[in-house]
C-alpha cells in the first residue's frame, strides 16, 4: 500500500547502492526530480534500466552513480549524443560503465513480461541484427506449434522502479495520462515502486479505462512539482526543448558538467528551489 513520503525519504528508503533501478517515462514524464535525489544521496553501483536513457541517465552516469546501463536507445532526442554516457563507455570517466543493449521492441516486451510475472519475453525480433552477437541475453526459441524461430529476452524485473505521473489521490492511486510509455509495466515489474506526482488530489476524476495504477501496487508516492522538467507533464507543462539543446554543451565538457551538477543538484537541498 502506497505511503505518501517526501522524495528524500522515498529514495532513502527504497534506492540502495548496488540496486537495479528503472526510471521510466518515454520522453514524457521522465522522473528527473527523483533522479536528482538519487544523485544528491550519492548512490553508487546502480544498474540502470531504461529504454531511452535520456539526460536523466546522462546525469546519473556523469555523477558516478552507475555501474551498468541496460537500454535500447541512448541519445539526446533530436539533439545528438549523450556525452556523459559516451565518455563513460569510451573513456571510462568518471569510471567505466558497462552497457547491455537491446532494441526498443525487446525492451518493451521485457517490461511487459516483467509486469506479467514471466521470466522471459518472446518476440519476432532481432532478425538479421548483430545485437545478439554482443548481448548474450538475447536467445532464440522455436515455436512448438509452427517451428518458427523467435527471439527471447529475460523479462525486466528491477529492484526499484521510479516513474513520474500527473496526480495521485489520497489513497495513493495514480493517474498516468498522455504518452504512457512503459510506466505501468515498470511499476508492476519491480519489487518496489516509487511514483512522484505533480499533485495529490481528492479525486482522480477520470474515465473508465484510464491508466490508473492502484495504490496497493505502489510503495511510495512523493509530490514533486514540475518533477519531470526538462521533460514534460501532459496537462501541466510543456517539454523544455531549449534545455535539451543546451544540455549538449554542458555535457560535452567534464568541468561544465560537474559545475552544473554542483550548482543544480548537490548544492540544493531539494529540487526546484
Amino acid at each position: 500500500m502506497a505511503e505518501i513520503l517526501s522524495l528524500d525519504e522515498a529514495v532513502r528508503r527504497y534506492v540502495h547502492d548496488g540496486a537495479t533501478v528503472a526510471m521510466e517515462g518515454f520522453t514524457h514524464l521522465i522522473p528527473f526530480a527523483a533522479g536528482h535525489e538519487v544523485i544528491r544521496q550519492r548512490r553508487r553501483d546502480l544498474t540502470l534500466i531504461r529504454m531511452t536513457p535520456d539526460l536523466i541517465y546522462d546525469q546519473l552516469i556523469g555523477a558516478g552513480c552507475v555501474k551498468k546501463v541496460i537500454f535500447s536507445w541512448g541519445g539526446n532526442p533530436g539533439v545528438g549524443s549523450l556525452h556523459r554516457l559516451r565518455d563513460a563507455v569510451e573513456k571510462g570517466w568518471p569510471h567505466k560503465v558497462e552497457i547491455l543493449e537491446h532494441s526498443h521492441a525487446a525492451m518493451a516486451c521485457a517490461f511487459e513480461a516483467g509486469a506479467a510475472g514471466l521470466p522471459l519475453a518472446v518476440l519476432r525480433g532481432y532478425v538479421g541484427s548483430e545485437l545478439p552477437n554482443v548481448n548474450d541475453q538475447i536467445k532464440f526459441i522455436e515455436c512448438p506449434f509452427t517451428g518458427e524461430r523467435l527471439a527471447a529476452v529475460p523479462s525486466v524485473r528491477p529492484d526499484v522502479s521510479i516513474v513520474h505521473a500527473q496526480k495521485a489521490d489520497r489513497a495513493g492511486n495514480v493517474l498516468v495520462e498522455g504518452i504512457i510509455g512503459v510506466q505501468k509495466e515498470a511499476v508492476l515489474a519491480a519489487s518496489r515502486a516509487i511514483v512522484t506526482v505533480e499533485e495529490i488530489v481528492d479525486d482522480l476524476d477520470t474515465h473508465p479505462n484510464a491508466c490508473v495504477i492502484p495504490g496497493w501496487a505502489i510503495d511510495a508516492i512523493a509530490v514533486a512539482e514540475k518533477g519531470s522538467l526538462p521533460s514534460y507533464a501532459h496537462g501541466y507543462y510543456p517539454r523544455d526543448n531549449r534545455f535539451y539543446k543546451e544540455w549538449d554543451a554542458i555535457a560535452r565538457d567534464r568541468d561544465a558538467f560537474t559545475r552544473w551538477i554542483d550548482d543544480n543538484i548537490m548544492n540544493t537541498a531539494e529540487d526546484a528551489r
Partner: protein
Amino acid sequence: MSTAIDYSASEMMTVTAARALENGMTCFVGIGLPSEAANLARLTHAPEVVLIYESGTLQTRPDVLPLSIGDGELCESALTTVSVPEMFRYWLQGGKVSVGFLGTAQIDRYANLNTTLIGDYTAPKVRLPGGGGAPEIATNAGEVFITLKHSPRAFVRDVDFITTLGFGRDGKGRDGVPNIGKGPTRVISDLCVMKPDPEDRELTVVSLHPGVTREQVQEATGWDIRFAAELETTPVPSAHELEVLRELKARTDRAHSGQ
C-alpha cells in the same frame, strides 16, 4: 504555370522522401528526416497517410515537427495513444504497419543500417545511440524507406555493425525467413534515389536529383555504386511543397526555441 524555384539539396531530399508516401499507407515514423518527410507528405499530397510514432501515438497529425519521438504535440494530435509495449506488439509486430520510415548513421550496399557504433564493439571509435525501434521496424513493417544525406562515411561498403537488417552481409538475409517484410525498397539521399537490385539486392541508383552527376554520387559513396540502365531524373519540388515545408520548419523552429 511553373517557374524555376530555388531549393536546397536537403529540401530536394525531404520532398522526394515525402513523395514516397501515399494515402492509404500506415507509416511508422523515425525521428528527424523521416518525420520531416512524413509530415510534409501529410500536409501536401497524402492527407490521409497514417503516421505512427514509437512513443505510442497512433494516427498523429502534429502541427510542428516533434524534437523528440514523444513530444506532447504527437499525443495531443493523435487519434489515441497506447502504451509502448502495445505499440511494438500489436501495431508493429501485429502487422498493421505498411511502411517503416527510417534514418540512420551508416548504411551499406545491402541497405543494412548501423546506429550502434563506429569501430569495434568493445573499443568503439564513436558510440552511436543504438538500435531503438529500427531493428524490428525494418523486419516487421511491410517495407522500409530510408532517408539520409550522402557521404562516404555514411554510405559504406560494409557497415561496422548491423544494427538493423537490410538484406544482410550477402544480400540474402531475408531469404526464407517467415513473416518478414520486404525490407528496404528505396533509399532517398540528398543526391539521388536508390533501390535494391531485384536480383542481388545491392543498392542501385535509379534516379539522380536534378543537377547531380554520377561522379558526385560515386564520390559520396564508399563502394563502387551501380546505376540503373534507365536512370531517371528526380522531379523537382513544387512551389507548393517548398512553401509547406518551409512553413513547417519555421513553425517548428519557433516552437522549439521558445521554451
